[in-house]
Every structure is written in structure tokens, then in C-alpha cells.
């Protein structure tokens, strides 16, 4: 309750002419889920805060899938608008806000890549793009990237290939079966085993939780 009052006050002061300080950092002490709750009350600052926390990761994911800056921006914008519209019915016990946001970004990007029929199967050429964001945000992302990439390297080649083509390539399980010349049932069980392994590796890693923003 206090939080809401505080934010309302912030919003009021933000609306006063002559005040152009980036105020969204005042929400920095709140959890993602609490910020989503503020988004649900149409608090625009809260949406800005979520973007500041997750926009960079969201854009990197969309860019990886779509391989096109303009389309990646579209996917990120649509995903954050979906957050804006849907925040009121977000219930934090079911999943973290970050995974919800990234799932929305992923679905948008995959929809677009399928529609565009982009050359999604070709080897991805890494473009390290410094972009604009704060160095501290980039640091937790870098840690997280190393952790997940290390986990992926511990999967078998086949499991890794299946996961990457599905998640980053936007291939459906049927397309994967056709493309890899494996039966659909095999693809399904590989996906299942790969995800279960990945979860196991990630949840037993010692540096768990260290990446979280707070």
C-alpha cells in the first residue's frame, strides 16, 4: 500500500513541468513481481522500470531469433505491450515475472520469424552490439549468458541441436523431424530429455540466484 502511495506521488511529481529526471530508478528496490503489480495499475513508470530491467535481454533474444534489428524492435514492443495489457492478471506464484516477459518476447519473435520465413537455419553470425544500456545491467546478463551457455555445452550434440533449432530457429517439432530426418516421436523425446537435463544442470549450479536483480 505504501509502495503504491509512493509511486503515485512519484508519478504526480513526474507530471509537473520542469521535472525531467529519470525517476524510474526509484522503483529499483522492488521485485519484478511488485513492479508488474504496479504496471497492472497503469503505472507507466513501472512499465519503464520493467523495460529497463529486461529490455536489453528481450532485444538480444528477439535479435537472435529474427536476425533483423527492425523486426526485433517490433517483437520487443509487442511483448511489452502484452505485459502492459496483461499485468492485471499476472499471479506471481505461478512463474516469475522475468520468465513471463521473456516468454512473451520469444513467442512474438517466433511468430514473426515464421511469418517472414527468414533464413533461420543458417549458422548464426554473432554480432556483438554494444548498444546503449547501463554497464551494470550488462554485467548480470553477461554472467547469466556464461552460465546458460556452459549448461548447454554439457548436453549431447543432438539434444543441444534440437533445443537450439526449436527455440532460436523457431522450427516446429514437425519441421525439425523433417529437417533432421528423425521420427517425430524421437524429436519429442529428445526435446523432453534435453529440457529436463538443462533444468537439472542449471538448478544444481553453485552460483544459482547470483544473477538476479533486486
Amino acid at each position, binding site marked *: 500500500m505504501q509502495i503504491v502511495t509512493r509511486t503515485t506521488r512519484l508519478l*504526480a511529481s513526474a*507530471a509537473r513541468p520542469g521535472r525531467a529526471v529519470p525517476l524510474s530508478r526509484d522503483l529499483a528496490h522492488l521485485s519484478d513481481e511488485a513492479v508488474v503489480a504496479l504496471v497492472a495499475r497503469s*503505472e*507507466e513508470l513501472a*512499465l*519503464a522500470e520493467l523495460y529497463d530491467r529486461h*529490455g*536489453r*535481454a528481450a*532485444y538480444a*533474444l528477439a*535479435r537472435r531469433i529474427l536476425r533483423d534489428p527492425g523486426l*526485433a*524492435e517490433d517483437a*520487443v*514492443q*509487442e511483448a*511489452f*505491450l*502484452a505485459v502492459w*495489457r*496483461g499485468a492485471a*492478471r*499476472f*499471479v506471481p506464484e*505461478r*512463474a516469475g515475472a522475468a*520468465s513471463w516477459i*521473456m*516468454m*512473451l*518476447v520469444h*513467442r512474438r519473435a517466433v511468430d514473426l520469424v515464421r511469418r517472414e520465413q527468414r533464413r533461420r537455419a543458417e549458422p548464426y553470425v*554473432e*554480432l556483438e*552490439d*554494444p*548498444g*546503449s*544500456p547501463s554497464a551494470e545491467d550488462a554485467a548480470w*546478463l553477461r554472467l547469466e*549468458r556464461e*552460465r546458460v*551457455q556452459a549448461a*548447454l555445452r554439457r548436453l549431447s550434440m543432438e539434444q543441444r541441436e534440437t*533445443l537450439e533449432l*526449436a527455440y*532460436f530457429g523457431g522450427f*516446429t*517439432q514437425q519441421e*525439425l523431424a523433417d529437417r533432421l530426418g528423425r521420427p517425430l516421436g524421437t524429436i*519429442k*523425446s529428445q*526435446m*523432453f530429455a534435453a*529440457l*529436463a537435463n*538443462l*533444468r537439472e544442470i*542449471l538448478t544444481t549450479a553453485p552460483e544459482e540466484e547470483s544473477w538476479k536483480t533486486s
Partner: protein
Amino acid sequence: MEDELIHEQCAAYALGALDPEDELVFETHLATCPRCRLELAGLAQAAGMLAYAVPAAGPPPDLRARILDAARRERPNVVPLRPGRSRVTLALASGAAAAACVAVGLGIWAVSLHEKLGATTAALHAGPLRAVRLHGAAGSLVVARGGEATLVVSGLEPAPAGKTYEAWVIRGGRAAPAGLFAARHGTAIVHLTGRVRSGAVVGVTLERAGGVAQPSASPIVTSALT
């Protein structure tokens, strides 16, 4: 048997690797299957971590303002972040915001279904929403607070020429027409025009094109809201 087959789809769903048709069927199944929801929660968490494995890339600095502008346009009551900044930027996906208020939700995973329902892609399962399995066909009846309901049916033969499927809300021995559909594309999603309250039965019959005022036969699909 059907449940086992659908259960296998959990991993593909978590990865977004089902085609749209399968995705829709899976989501309606999720609504009535706690086992799949539990399985999915774990698998989807792992799938979500993949998002962080990608190379760094920074969005253009103006994307933030474009998103906030677009959000502000959807809810004009919002206090602007910076005064005097009202320039219209990108065109928006239309209409979704208003519909979201009455959205039928099946949970955080129901991404595809929300889209098809014209509601929203967001949302976790809010308490008062209920999903009831159908008898006679695969699918669910999803009932929101206040009795607003949507029927999701898959596997019906397309209605033959000159015929239509008609949905009914049956209560106290009286059947009220609740919507027509053709089932042309495998999975039909029908927003029922009548409210569905406790004790009501939703049924589907095959009728002549244009629909009729009273069902001419016993329903081929039913779902009872207890």
C-alpha cells in the same frame, strides 16, 4: 490414450515448437490437466533460461520511448512520464486492451489461446475462471467471472454445405441459442452469446445454415458446469 499423447507435447510447447493448431489444442488440454501444468512449469522454466544464452545486443535508445508512447495511447488515463510528449509513433495492435478486461484466461501458458480469443497474450489463471472438459469432442468450455464463456472444440468434422453447428446454453430444461460456427479449420473457438451459470449445460447440435431457435436433435457435444 489421448491424454498420454497430449502429455508428450509439454516440452515442445515449452519451447514454442508446436504448430498453431497443436498449440491451441494443447492449451485447452492444459486447462483441465493439473499433471501437464505441473510438468510444464518445470520445463518452461528451463526453456526460458535459453533466452539468456544469446549474444549481447542493445536495443536502440528510442525503443523505450516508443513502447511507453504506445502504452500511453492504449490507456489515456495514464499520467505521462514527461509532460507535453504525446507524439504518436507506431501503430498498435488494435482493440486488444479493451477486450483484456473481460479476457478468458487459462493461465500464463495460454499464449496462443489468448490471441485467438482476441483477449490478450498475457495473464495467469485468475481464480474465478473455470475450464470444463467436453463430452463428445476434444476441447474445453472456459467460463469467466459472471458467466461469460468460450467454447473451444477441436476434431469436429467441418459442417457440411447448408449446415452449421449451433451452440446452446441449456438450463432448467430450456435451450437458448448461443452462437453458430462452421468448424472449418479443425479447432473452433466460439464466444457464447449467453451467460453460463452453475447448473447449466452447454451443448452443440448440427442445424441448417443460419441456425434455428430450438435444437432439432440431441447435442453431439456437451459440457456441464456444476
